[in-house]
């Protein structure tokens, strides 16, 4: 870790002090703050490292100003629309994730990458997907960035367990990774009751016809899982219909129409009937 320069310290000290309630509600000078951030940005990599060095775990000291400065910097480099500047900022932060900071500090850095990061930090974030404390922010930053996220999530899944596995499964659905359909189909039979609905939703959102059979089977479960798997079936049918796969969509709707005979599930039957009507209308129109 580099030492923090006195010039940086001076700049950071110019940022507002929290008021008597601990808030930024008094004496907030927009122009002054923006000038400070612009000057910190000019300090480049060293300034970023200096700010990171000032961060502490929550409750272990007062880092309100450097914490604020780092976030303002993340927003500032996006606002400038200077690709080189933004990329340099993101790379500088990403480098620190391999260093010896606390998990709480690293989590904060990842959240700033969620704001300003791009493809350049994707491999670094991917390495954190097996970390119980960092997998959630890392996965969220990855899917916010989008490009390249699916490969990282897919590659991390086989070795992931517990919370990391659940997080990865859900986010494979967010990025709609078709290459994970087989793995996610198997996750429908997972021992973990949170993982099964997450896998069902992920498969539905991906919208691949290979998921139809497994999702219909999952929708025969009971309670919350039945509700969630039924939703997944309806979502999958909508996705398939949008992709022109009418036969598969009809299969889902027909199954739900025929199996939801209990008055308590009449609304699902109606949803399926509506889906069938839309499908038939599209077929008549040659769509």
């Amino acid at each position, binding site marked *: 870790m580099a030492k923090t320069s006195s010039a940086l310290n001076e700049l950071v000290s110019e940022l507002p002090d*929290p008021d008597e309630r601990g808030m930024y509600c008094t004496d907030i000078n*927009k122009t002054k703050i923006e000038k400070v951030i612009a000057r910190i940005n000019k300090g480049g990599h060293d300034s970023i490292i200096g700010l990171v060095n000032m961060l502490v775990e929550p409750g272990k000291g007062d*880092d309100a100003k450097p914490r604020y400065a780092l976030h303002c910097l993340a927003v500032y480099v*996006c606002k400038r629309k200077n690709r080189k500047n933004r990329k340099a900022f993101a790379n500088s932060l990403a480098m620190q994730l391999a260093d010896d900071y606390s998990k709480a500090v690293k989590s904060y850095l990842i959240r700033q990458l969620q704001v300003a990061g791009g493809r350049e930090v994707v491999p670094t974030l991917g390495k954190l997907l097996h970390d119980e404390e960092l997998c959630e922010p890392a996965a*969220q930053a990855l899917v916010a960035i989008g490009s390249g996220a699916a490969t990282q999530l897919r590659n991390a899944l086989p070795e992931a367990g517990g919370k990391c596995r659940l997080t990865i499964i859900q986010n494979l659905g967010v990025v709609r990774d078709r290459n994970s359909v087989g793995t996610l189909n198997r996750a429908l039979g997972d021992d973990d009751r949170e993982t099964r609905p997450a896998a069902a939703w992920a498969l539905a959102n991906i919208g691949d016809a290979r998921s139809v059979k497994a999702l219909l089977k999952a929708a025969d479960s009971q309670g*919350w899982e039945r509700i969630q798997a039924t*939703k997944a079936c309806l979502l999958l049918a909508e996705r398939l219909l949008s992709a022109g796969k009418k036969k598969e969509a009809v299969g889902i709707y027909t199954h739900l129409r025929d199996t939801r005979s209990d008055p308590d*599930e009449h609304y699902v039957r*109606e*949803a399926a009937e509506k889906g069938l009507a839309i499908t038939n209308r599209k077929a008549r129109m040659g769509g």
Partner: protein
Amino acid sequence: MHSKGERTMQKDKQVTRREFLKGSIGAATAFTIVPRHVLGGPGYTPPSETFGAALIGCGGRGNGTFNAMGLEARKLAICDVKFVGRTDNKMVYTDFRRVLERKDIDVVAIATPPHWHALISIAAMEAGKDVLCEKPMTRFIAEGRAVADAEKRYKRIFQVGTFGRFGASRNPANIETHKIMKSGLLKNCKAVHIKRGGLKVKQWSGIVNPTPQPIPKSLDWDMYCGPSPLKPYHPHRTGGTHRGYWDYEGGGLTDMGQHHFDPVQWTFAKDDTSPVEIEAYAPPAHPEACGMWGWVEMKYADGLTFVFDSSEWPTQGEPSYDRKENREVSLSDLSEDDQKKIAAMPAPEPLITFAEAVKTRKRAGGNADAANRSATLMHLANIAIRTGRKIHYDPVKEEIIGDDRANRLVNPPMRAPWHL
């Protein structure tokens, strides 16, 4: 064999809450229900008008939201993450999923902090329940579309808890404005609606560096955080003051904005669209704690402009915004021929309350599409504040144009297992 009267009663019992609400009988049955005074005398409520209800989120707005349903409702379940140690999973719950599994619950009032509003609303409709949800409807833009999709997919009733629009929709001046705007006859609309003050900016700000505190034994903190990032516990993040954190709401602007702009949006006939240009004047925002801002200007494609003026920053108690003045829409903005067309237009359909909607299966006046659009106003305003840049928005795709990083605030990822 049943007598005719018994059959009526029997049928009425069979049509209790479940079939009625699940939509299997639907509107056609509504007029077959015998009035309560015929069946059981004054004060008697027939079973078909009594609804099994649950309250999810039992804080300061809990009972108010529940009562706002306006139904003869039996409260069968209450649910709150702060009920740890006192749950019986019969009446008292900490996990809303267990409540929604119950088949005897027809309607759900949601008064949790807003980061849970959309998820629970969607889950409730997926479980076949009707929903009255406290404002603000959502924490971010994509949630609103997902609620509206669920409302349509399952044909459930959804109503957001901002009733100002019902009063607005009965006001003759508002009706005239509504008709003018709805007609599309007004080109280059120059109307400006400025909301000055009353947005509780300072009141609902967050602490910028909260010192973590021990989690109370009665609180399921992980469940409280839910889809939002799991942060160290601090009491200011809960119990009303949660409004001051991006993780759970969006400051006083989000808290009060939908109250104000929901009826204004109806008046200007903008329930089906959103502004296209959004510009804010604010200092750089804190990453976690909502703080000060001056004004936000939001312009629709037809030129109509809405303005939030905090009147709390840079100077407390004085207007922050001076770029435009309030300007109403009037018939005199139109040619004589067009004025005649407006006069010939029928009055807008009266808005339907939650209770009427539940009973008739007609769409509620503050339905998910309309509520999504009024919530979007606040979210767009906050995105402009948080990114420090002018936003261009596509009201059809419901995404920001040409700014991928600002779009990250339109649909931020959720913590598993929570998803839209």
